[in-house]
């Protein structure tokens, strides 16, 4: 069978169109997942719900966080960094005892971001509060301003850093909500560990996603932020506190 000139041209145009359009069609597929180049979006607001009634004496969240982020101590509790810590509470009047994990609360209006002179402390569009390690000058004003004591200043050289989690002596750091995992569509290390080995006290999710588990739980069950009088609209909320 011989191909006429007209057919040849027609096929050529179709092939060219296919080649030209294929990447576009592929792009539509890619839009469904967030690529590393894509900026965080304000359509999402990442958050946590912590049920203190389910939080047990274990420290799996702390261990998992510090392993995931390469946060190691030097045996100096006053100056070693802590991104998440277990806090034990006892009611002064009734003696009722509770325990809970405390970390950066990822405020909508973070005082640490307000006070940072260089803008190194910043909030991503999706509500995750971070420190830009390249512009932090180590003034520690954010450590003073944080109402939750969530930040640590790096008092000595750090070694064996994780590729996803840059750290450096002389700068300030805190819980990143495992932003590197969240960007890959995973949950923070503390939540994963708690649900695997702990009391299943933590739920991570998108506060804006009406169909999501976090949104649904917060809608049905009473919860509250820490230091609500400051009106910071934290991304972390506690139940049964």
């Amino acid at each position, binding site marked *: 069978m011989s191909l006429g000139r007209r057919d040849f041209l027609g096929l050529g145009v179709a092939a060219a169109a296919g080649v030209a359009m294929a990447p576009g069609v592929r792009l539509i597929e890619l839009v469904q997942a967030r690529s590393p180049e894509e900026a965080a979006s304000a359509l999402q607001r990442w958050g946590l719900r912590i049920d203190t009634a389910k939080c047990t004496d274990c420290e799996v969240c702390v261990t998992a966080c510090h392993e995931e982020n390469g946060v190691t101590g*030097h045996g*100096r*509790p*006053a*100056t*070693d*960094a*802590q991104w998440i*810590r*277990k*806090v*034990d*509470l*006892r*009611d*002064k*009047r009734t003696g009722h005892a509770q325990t809970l994990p*405390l970390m950066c609360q990822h405020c909508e209006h973070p*005082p640490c*971001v*307000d*006070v*940072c*002179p*260089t*803008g*190194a402390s910043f909030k991503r569009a999706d509500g995750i509060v971070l420190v830009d390690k*390249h*512009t*932090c*000058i*180590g*003034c*520690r*004003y954010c*450590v*003073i*301003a*944080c*109402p*939750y*004591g969530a*930040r*640590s*200043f*790096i*008092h*000595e*050289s750090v070694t064996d850093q994780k590729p996803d989690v840059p750290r450096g*002596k*002389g*700068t*300030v750091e805190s819980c990143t909500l495992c932003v590197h995992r969240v960007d890959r569509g995973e949950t923070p290390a503390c939540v994963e560990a708690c649900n695997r080995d702990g009391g299943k006290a933590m739920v991570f999710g998108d506060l804006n996603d009406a169909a999501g588990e976090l949104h649904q739980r917060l809608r049905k069950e009473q919860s509250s932020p*820490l*230091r609500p009088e*400051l009106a910071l609209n934290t991304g972390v909320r506690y139940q049964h506190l």
Partner: protein
Amino acid sequence: MAYIHYRPIQGRSPGFLALLGALAALIMAGLAAARYMEHQGHYVTGMSNQIVWGTPHVFAVFLIVAASGALNVASIASVFGRDMYKPLARLSGLLAITLLLGGLAVLVLDLGRPDRLIVAMTHYNFKSIFAWNIFLYTGFIAVVTAYLWMMFERRMNDYIEPAGFIAFFWRLALTTGTGSIFGFVVAREAYDTALYAPMFILMSFSFGLAVFILALMAAYRGAGRPLGDLIVLRLKNLLGLFVAAVIYFVVVYHLTNLYFTGRHGIERFVLLDGGIYTLLFWLGQMLIGGFLPLALLYHPVSRRSRRAIAGAAACVIVGGLAQLYVIIIGGQAYPLDIFPGKDVTSSFFDGQVAAYVPSLPEVALGVGGMALAIALTVIALKVLPFLPRSLADSDIDADPAEPGKERPAAA
């Protein structure tokens, strides 16, 4: 009015050189301390994740606050038109700059990343009072330098008054900014108050004038130039007024906190059972920094004595350092009230008063900043004619409109 003859100091005596040598040694020690802290990391200091601002910040804030206050003498001359203070205006402007440079040096060298100073100069978050302060501090140096130039350059003398106005308002803004570093912190009960802005302004009046009086007395004594009672006694009265005003603000601050039940914890901590902070508050800030200088300045036996006036000024400085120690370090040592009504424990020292002991490198850095301020002043006095040849009573224009209560008997 009498013509004022300004002359540089000679600065050739063994005493002068010994002073410079001692200051240089202290500055070197401060630099070595900064290098050590930067190289090792801040764990070698007394500071921690609970007390992130320590002794260097006490010295730095003192110097910065005193810097704006030291300018007051010049302001009184050019803004409030008191001719008697005119011969002192140059020294006043000089101290404003040198004290600020000393304070800023300490602040910058204590940063976790002092090498990133250029970042602080190129990246600004204008919601941060710290970022504003960077402009207020550098601008202050520029404004006061211009002000000094108007004083030195005869053909610019006509502009002294407007320059003085600008410098005066700038200094008020600067101290408002410094006080607000603490006043704007909503997280901590010792801070979070608008009162810190005016309180820091009054503290600057008091600390700055105390430093000015000591510098004036030391310079005239060292240079062997006459310094009459007229000026000294006038400055003394002013110092007394400022010391009393600072006490007033401290009383209002604590009374307000005592009225709020939620702040009884921090008040109890500072006033009653805070250990070193309570001791520094009552003994350092109130007694040595407040009541003792007032007694020295106004008691009939001591109020005309140069030694008592110098002693009172030194007390104000010691008390000022104690006051800033209580505000800066005590304010951080008192635990955050994240869980009201609960006893709190954790491995991060939640619910506990944070421990802090000043370390040698911190003290060396702070003292080095003070030495830098003094050294810059001393060198400037030798290089340029900052000081009038004589401040004897006969060479001074006393303001007829404002007769001093403490005029010397002979005048």
